[in-house]
């Protein structure tokens, strides 16, 4: 399949620069890891966050980071900052001229192995959470965990694709979408009740990042929603993930029809 050949070319190119790849992955691991350490050190002084223990927050943090890191690696070509450059420099035209599906090409264009650093960081924090929480893992929960993870990856990916779509019009990468992509993720790393009502509502009903991480976490902890939403909201993650991805791809295709090259 042509997609696999394109993707493996991208990967082999990075594997050539082994030292550079290692430094980059380690930087991401250390950088994101120290961010967690800063939170843990401060948390330690106060002892809880809206009734959540450090282990529970680590669970949210780890899950979010694994999902976002994986998404960033797989959907990197749609990163609005990267995609905006394709439009500005006219390299998108090169893709369009090839007799290969455009979306497959963009997927294959920017699979960054250095993102493994961030994924490893998330995995470490998640392992720490499981170590201190001693959760009662039932078979149902164990089955649902990977579903949640994939749903979150798809959902974050949809945000990237939606952000990339905006650059068909703005030409410049639209930096405001960082608020929804990186901001929405940062928000997922903490229990939802600590945020103001307008923020909670926005990230539950408009851009439902809370539905893909926070609500499933409530199910894993056997906690009722302090904000009063019914228990089945915890199981909406796959529908929201798939739905968001499908919608973003439709919008992307529609945007593509309105694309005019910069002529660069």
């Amino acid at each position: 399949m042509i997609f696999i050949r394109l993707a493996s070319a991208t990967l082999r190119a990075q594997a050539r620069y082994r030292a550079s790849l290692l430094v980059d992955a380690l930087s991401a691991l250390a950088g994101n890891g120290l961010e967690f350490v800063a939170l843990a050190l401060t948390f330690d002084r106060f002892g809880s966050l809206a009734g959540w223990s450090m282990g529970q927050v680590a669970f949210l943090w780890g899950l979010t980071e694994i999902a976002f890191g994986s998404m960033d690696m797989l959907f990197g070509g749609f990163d609005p900052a990267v995609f905006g450059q394709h439009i500005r420099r006219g390299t998108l035209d090169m893709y369009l001229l090839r007799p290969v599906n455009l979306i497959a090409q963009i997927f294959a264009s920017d699979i960054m192995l250095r993102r493994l650093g961030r994924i490893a960081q998330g995995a470490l924090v998640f392992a720490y959470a499981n170590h201190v929480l001693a959760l009662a893992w039932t078979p149902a929960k164990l089955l649902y965990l990977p579903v949640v993870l994939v749903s979150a990856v798809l959902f974050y990916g949809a945000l990237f694709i939606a952000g990339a779509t905006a650059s068909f019009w703005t030409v410049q990468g639209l930096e405001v979408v960082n608020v929804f992509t990186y901001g929405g993720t940062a928000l997922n790393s903490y229990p939802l009740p600590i945020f103001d009502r307008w923020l909670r509502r926005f990230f539950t009903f408009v851009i439902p990042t809370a539905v893909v991480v926070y609500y499933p976490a409530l199910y894993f902890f056997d906690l009722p929603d302090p904000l009063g939403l019914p228990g089945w909201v915890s199981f909406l993650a796959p529908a929201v993930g798939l739905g968001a991805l499908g919608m973003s791809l439709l919008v992307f295709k529609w945007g593509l029809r309105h694309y005019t090259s910069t002529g660069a």
Partner: protein
Amino acid sequence: MNAYLALARASLARQFRYRGANLAGLITNFFFGVIRVSVMVALYNANPAAAPAGYDLAKAVTYLACAQAIIGWVALWGWWDLVRALKGGEVVADLQRPIDFFGLWAAQDFGRAIAQLFLRAIPIMLAFALVYPLVGPADIGQLLIFILSFALAWFLSFTWRFLFSILGFWVTDGTGFARLAIFSATFFTGFLMPLSLFPDALAGVLRWLPFAGMVATPLDVFSNALRGPEALVAVAVQAFWALALYALAQATFTAGVRRLTTQGG
């Protein structure tokens, strides 16, 4: 001197051109600040007595608001100008100018920082002041110490960025070094959480390192966490590291230029 002023002015004017990017940056910085302040408020609500004596929520919130405001001023995240100039070879043109290389880049960066003061720092502080109760320097003396500390923070950050960027004299692509330098230093600058809330032993060590002077020191002076003699000591530490890093930067530069071979073409 006139050359430096002209460089700074041109660089300042350039910043004002990117209206869309500036507004987007402003919104992003503010939003991340809201997330971090929300975490802080929830921590204090959980156990107000756990905070160190005299370090109340208003100080912590002010610290975090200032941390978002200072991003554009110190540019510790996402400053690739010199890394790129070295990688691309444009640096050759700079080296041929009859002007000190460090000074040339410092002047340009100072213009950039001044622009960011008006485009980012002040608007963000105003936005936070509308939403949260903030504190400011308690008296005129404290304000003067803050201004000094704030200026030193820029110089320290620039010298540090200059240092890790010119490692590019030794490798073809300095991006990896730069990324490592940025990622690892963030924690030590106190950007993520107020140093006062870290365990005392750790905070004590961090305050003597050069990184605290790039972010934490001016923030602690602004929010009155460091006062009087304590504030002056912290500023003296900043000044010491400013001189030390400057000397190191010049020495590294001299050694680097001797090794420099740019790729032709």
